[in-house]
């Protein structure tokens, strides 16, 4: 009669000498399977907590950006104290029809929702940009947009720089800039994240009366209303900020959206 006890093969396996080839393979498999369970279990269980952390961090950064703009906290209290989140279709310059903030992450995992950039267009060194972006709008009591908060990103000297740009109601004046992620050289390029440097963006104008985008990080001290002081020893990082702002405010970035807001169509 065959032995039906399921423990028997297990005991037989354990009794095998350690140098037996089958045992080596089975042990390797069992240890890997156990470790796989451990790792994927931890990742799956902890993912929601991590996502909540990231969202809270983004929110805190937005709030500190808004709080740093003069007169903004009063406006926030008037309008109910929070920003509206909108997902926009970048090419059309209006709210995306079928993508919501909740489904944005899933939509951006599909390569069909990305547009690759030709080298001439690709000022920010991104390679490709998403078709949808999540922005934040603050409206005054009449329903007019008083502040638009736009996430931007671009290649820096050591890696990607992520930032949040706030524009005033005229869509031509910077209300503030916050760096949310950078890996520039500490002490040089990394000074872009210092509040003292970021504070000079407040009130900087983007385009002149003819509509030409003139914003730049100067080499050395700023020369006109469209420039901010450069960082000595970090020319590549300073240039990256210039190009990143120019790209995202240009026709491939938020240009269509900004035009729509200016036409009061948004």
């Amino acid at each position, binding site marked *: 009669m065959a032995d039906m006890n399921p423990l028997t093969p297990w005991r037989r396996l*354990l009794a095998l000498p*350690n*140098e*037996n080839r089958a*045992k*080596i393979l089975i*042990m*390797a498999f069992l*240890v*890997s399977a156990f*470790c796989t369970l*451990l*790792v994927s279990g*931890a*990742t799956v269980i*902890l993912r929601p*907590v*991590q996502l909540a*952390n*990231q969202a809270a*961090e983004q929110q805190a950064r937005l709030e500190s950006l808004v709080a740093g703009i003069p007169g903004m906290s009063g406006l926030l209290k008037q309008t109910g104290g929070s920003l509206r989140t909108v997902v926009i279709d970048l090419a059309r310059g209006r709210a995306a029809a079928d993508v919501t903030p909740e489904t944005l992450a899933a939509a951006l995992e599909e390569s069909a929702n990305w547009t690759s950039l030709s080298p001439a267009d690709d000022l920010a060194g991104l390679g490709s940009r998403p078709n949808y972006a999540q922005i934040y709008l603050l409206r005054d009591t009449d329903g007019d947009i008083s502040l638009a908060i736009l996430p931007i990103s671009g290649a820096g000297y050591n890696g990607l720089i992520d930032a949040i740009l706030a524009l005033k109601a005229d869509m031509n004046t910077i209300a503030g800039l916050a760096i949310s992620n950078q890996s520039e050289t500490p002490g040089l390029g990394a000074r872009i994240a210092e509040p003292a440097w970021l504070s000079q963006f407040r009130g900087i104008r983007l385009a002149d009366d003819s509509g030409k985008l003139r914003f730049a990080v100067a080499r050395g001290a700023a020369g006109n209303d469209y420039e901010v002081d450069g960082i000595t020893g970090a020319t590549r990082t300073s240039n990256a900020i210039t190009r990143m702002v120019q790209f995202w405010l240009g026709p491939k970035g938020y240009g269509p959206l900004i035009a729509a807001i200016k036409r009061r169509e948004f």
Partner: protein
Amino acid sequence: MSRTAILSTLVDPLIRQNPVTLQILGICSALAVTTSVATALVMSASLTVVIVMAALMISLIRHHIPNAIRLIIQIIIIASLVIVIDQCLQAYLPDISRKLSVFVSLITTNCLVLGRTESFSRLNPPLPAMLDALGNGLGYSLVLIVIGAIRELFGAGSLLGYQVLTTVDQGGSFTPLNLMLLAPSAFFLLGGLVWAIRTVVPEQTEELEHTPPEMEANRE
């Protein structure tokens, strides 16, 4: 296992057999994460948890680890534990996790962990293995926290975030030593610590590997 043996397994690695200052193991992370006490504490706790859990798991299967793949098995267990710890830190201590950046993942390659599992846990029953691992984890933690405290105190004038010395910026008289926040200072401090311990406990002093050549007065 007698009580004194248990105690010595646990206490020996603190100073007498300290993995960092005597065996000079795991100093990469000891240099990188000791700019403040908080990061040093979290790093120490992570390493101690990983080393104790790895000791337990490896000790449990010690009779069935094929010799040919024993290092692979140990590393895969350690690496999985490190990933789990890293995920926990990212979920519950996101700020500190960002400061520790890649160094939590690098616990995997910390020679201290593999050294203990390979030389002790693999050959001993679970309880002594875990005690030995705990002792070594605490020995590592002790060094990290001492260096972290010195660097934070003199580099930023604070301890665990509380301002102890008022810096010049805040209107006080203490000028922070910026060197303390850079990696080389950890080398100096670690060297000073090793020297201090070996002065107090002379048997830790290693024999010279090379003797300096004697000066010959009438060389031809």
